[in-house]
């Protein structure tokens, strides 16, 4: 691209600048264009999960539904509530989309197809993610609305809490690949990390679902309690931006799950044909996305105290212990510092898999015991209140 511009007669600096601008536009619009299709897919899937048809009017199978929706939301009246903090109120939705779009900079689409292959890729993702929390806070505070403020409080408590297990889970692929760059992590996955560290993948999956604020962790906008949480006062395109931001957040996290644990663009012939790598990445990401949709459509919303207790008393200790075990084993198994092929990766993967299975059995046993004790406690309380409630009928 730069060469072509140089041939036409641009100066060197200008050619580089234009080439980079075009790159930025391509990377940024990939996510946004995908959103148009993805929202249709999500609504269709949600309909199927709930035994409905989903959108089916416009275009074949309703595939063009997003376009009239976008037009409609653009034409809606833009309302700024009285007493709102105007500037903050207007910037918040932009920041919400912005923080998600920034993550696409480091996503490796295929061999050599990366916006910018930062050496601090993983740290960058975490840093960019924290901007989204500010958007939630700004929206909640500036709306001059009690429900919005409550939603923002809940949101930030949730986002900050679940950031910890997520970062601890992200450390494991970094540890296994010896690289913080996303391309490096993909390139080192001769065997998908899902097979080596399934527990880490699960922790990342759960905490990223909490990070994007979707059911069962959608306490930020619990409609039965908080109207719509921090976006209660937003209308028109500003609401649309939050909507797009939330959707894109979910899709970005499924892409990241595919990169960190499912091998990213890796697949047969992906090294030679970059386009094939892009297809592999999207297929893997959609796999993760489908699992997220499945959970979202199936589970009821957790309570705020359950959400916090689950994180601080279960997820954080588990991810810390998991990180320690993985790091220890990785040092113990010989030959882990120079993995260059499928064969090299086989032994460490098997060792880690066995260790993960053992850990999973231990955790499940502990959870089972805890569940049983909890049930006995509830039963004892019920009996203490009313002796007529005997064991077995107290559900």
């Amino acid at each position, binding site marked *: 691209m730069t060469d072509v511009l140089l041939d036409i007669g641009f100066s060197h600096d200008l050619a580089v600048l234009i080439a980079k601008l075009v790159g930025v536009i391509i990377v940024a619009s990939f996510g946004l264009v995908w959103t148009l299709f993805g929202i249709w897919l999500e609504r269709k899937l949600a309909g199927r999960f709930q035994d409905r048809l989903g959108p089916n009017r416009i275009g074949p199978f309703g595939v063009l539904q997003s376009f009239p929706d976008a037009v409609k939301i653009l034409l809606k009246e833009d309302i700024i509530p009285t007493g709102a903090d105007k500037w903050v109120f207007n910037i918040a939705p932009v920041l919400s989309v912005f923080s998600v779009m920034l993550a696409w900079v480091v996503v490796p689409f295929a061999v050599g197809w990366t916006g910018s292959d*930062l*050496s601090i890729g993983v*740290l960058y993702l*975490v*840093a960019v993610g*924290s901007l989204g929390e*500010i958007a939630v806070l700004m929206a909640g505070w500036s709306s001059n609305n009690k429900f919005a403020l409550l939603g923002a409080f809940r949101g930030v408590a949730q986002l900050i809490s679940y950031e910890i297990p997520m970062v601890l889970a992200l450390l494991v692929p970094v540890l296994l690949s010896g690289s913080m760059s996303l391309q490096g992590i993909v390139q080192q996955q001769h065997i998908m990390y899902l097979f080596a560290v399934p527990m880490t993948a699960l922790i990342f999956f759960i905490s990223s679902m909490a990070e994007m604020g979707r059911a069962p962790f959608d306490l930020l906008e619990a409609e039965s309690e908080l109207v719509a949480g921090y976006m209660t006062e937003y209308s028109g395109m500003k609401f649309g931006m939050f909507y797009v931001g939330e959707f894109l957040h979910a899709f970005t996290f499924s892409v990241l799950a595919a990169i960190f644990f499912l091998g990213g663009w890796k697949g047969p012939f992906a090294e030679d044909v970059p386009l094939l790598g892009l297809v592999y990445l999207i297929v893997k990401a959609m796999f993760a996305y489908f699992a997220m949709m499945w959970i979202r459509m199936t589970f009821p919303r957790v309570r705020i105290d359950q959400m916090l207790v689950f994180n601080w008393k279960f997820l954080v200790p588990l991810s810390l212990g998991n990180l320690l075990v993985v790091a220890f084993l990785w040092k113990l198994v010989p030959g882990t510092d120079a993995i260059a092929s499928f064969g090299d990766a086989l032994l460490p993967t098997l060792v880690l898999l066995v260790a993960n299975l053992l850990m999973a059995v231990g955790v499940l046993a502990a959870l089972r015991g805890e569940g049983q004790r909890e049930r006995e406690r509830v039963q004892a309380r019920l009996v203490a209140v009313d002796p007529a409630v005997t064991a077995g009928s107290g559900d």
Partner: protein
Amino acid sequence: MTWQALVFLIFSVITLGGGLLVVTTRNLFHAALYLMLSLFGVAGLFVLLTAPFLAGVEVVVYIGAIAILIIFAIMLTPQVTQVINLRGTQWIAALVAAVLFFLMLASVLTPVAEELGVDDWSAGFTQDDPAGVPANTLTDLGESLVDTDRYVLPFEVASVLLMAALIGAALMVRPEDPGPRRPESAPVVEPDAGQATTGGD
């Protein structure tokens, strides 16, 4: 003027302007947001200095954690959000403090600059590549933190200190004397839940 100089100027304006607005705005919430802007500018300067790791940490720690905690505190105390009497007669004190701080900075930085051999302060604005920076500072930084010959001791001491602070904070927010555990409030159970099916609906 090179591209770097232009970007440097932009980030400097963001940093300094944000900092100025932090201390002049009357709205505490806005002040916290301007603080974030200023810190963001500092992160940009770190990127310009080819220290991307520090830039990332700056955003994660200062914007993602500390500034959000500040905002949380502000939001939980709405009566102090509007500071009425902010700019009283304190400007003399502010001026003195600023001059003293500048003198302190200059006295610290000048010997450092001499040691590094920087004699022309405006060199960075005219040269394309102001200084040869090692390409992979990240690996070096990581290794120096766990190298027994270098910084492993301070690193571990800092970790232990932070851990102690963490435990201390957790202890401080506990109730003074928990005493015997209060019996958890019993769930409300209708006394005649079993016979309710005979109701008239």
